[in-house]
C-alpha cells in the first residue's frame, strides 16, 4: 500500500518536473526563434537528421514529437513507416552526431520515464 502510494507521488513529482522542463524548453525555443528572425544576418545552418527511437508506445511517441516540435530549433518532420526513425528539421546543426545523441538520450529518456 505504502509503496503504491509513494509510486503515485513519484509519478506526480516526475510529471511536475517534466512540465517545468517543457515550459522551460518552450520559452527558450520561442526566444531562440525570435533571435534568429530578428538578427539581420542569418546564422542558422539548418539540416534534417534522423533519430532512432526504440519501441515507444503511441502515447510516448505523441509526447516526444510534440516536445521535439516545441523545443529550441527542432521540428519533427517525418516518421518512418516502421516507427523506428524520427526525422527532425533543425535550425542549427553544427554537429549532427551531438544533436542526435542529445535527443536520443535526453528527450527519449525523459519521455520514457513518465509516459
Amino acid at each position, binding site marked *: 500500500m505504502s509503496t503504491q502510494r509513494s509510486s503515485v507521488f513519484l509519478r506526480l513529482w516526475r510529471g511536475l518536473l517534466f512540465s517545468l522542463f517543457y515550459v522551460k524548453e*518552450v*520559452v527558450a*525555443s*520561442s526566444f531562440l*526563434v*525570435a533571435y*534568429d*528572425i*530578428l538578427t539581420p544576418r*542569418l546564422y*542558422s*545552418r*539548418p*539540416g*534534417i*537528421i*534522423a533519430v532512432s527511437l526504440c519501441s515507444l508506445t503511441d502515447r510516448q511517441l505523441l509526447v516526444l*514529437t*510534440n516536445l*521535439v*516540435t*516545441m523545443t529550441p*530549433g527542432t*521540428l*519533427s*518532420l*517525418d516518421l*518512418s*513507416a516502421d516507427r523506428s*526513425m524520427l*526525422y527532425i*528539421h533543425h*535550425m542549427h*546543426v553544427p554537429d*549532427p552526431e551531438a544533436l542526435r545523441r542529445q535527443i536520443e538520450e535526453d528527450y527519449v529518456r525523459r519521455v520514457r520515464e513518465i509516459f
Partner: protein
Amino acid sequence: MITDILIAFLLLGGSAFALVAALGIVRLPDFYMRMHAATKASAFGLVLIFAGAALYFGDLLVLLEILLIVFFVYVTAPIAAHLIGRAAYHMNVPLWEETQVDELRPRIEESEAEIESGNASAAAAPDDPAD
C-alpha cells in the same frame, strides 16, 4: 496599478511575438524554417496574450478556460506543423541551399525505388488473372 503594467507588458509581449512570427514567415529562407516561426513564436505569443487576459479578468472560470485553450493550442500546433512539413517534404518543396545535412532524402528515394520496382514487376507479369 502594478497589475495594469503587468497586463500591458504581457499583451505587448504577446503581440511582439506574433509580429516576430509574421516577420519570420517573410524573412526566413525556406519553407521548413518558416514553419519553425509559425509554430513556436506564434504559440508563445498567444500564451502571453492569454496570460494578460487571465490577469485582467482575475476570474477562476476564465483562468480555467484559458488554461484549456493554451493546452489545446500546444497539443494541436505541433501536429499541424508536422503534417504540413511532412506534406511539403513529400511534394519536394526545396530546402535552403545552406542546409547542411538531409538524412530523410535517401530514405524517401529508397521507398520510391521500391514502389517503382513493384510496379515494374507487376507490369512484367502479363498473365495476371486480374486483367
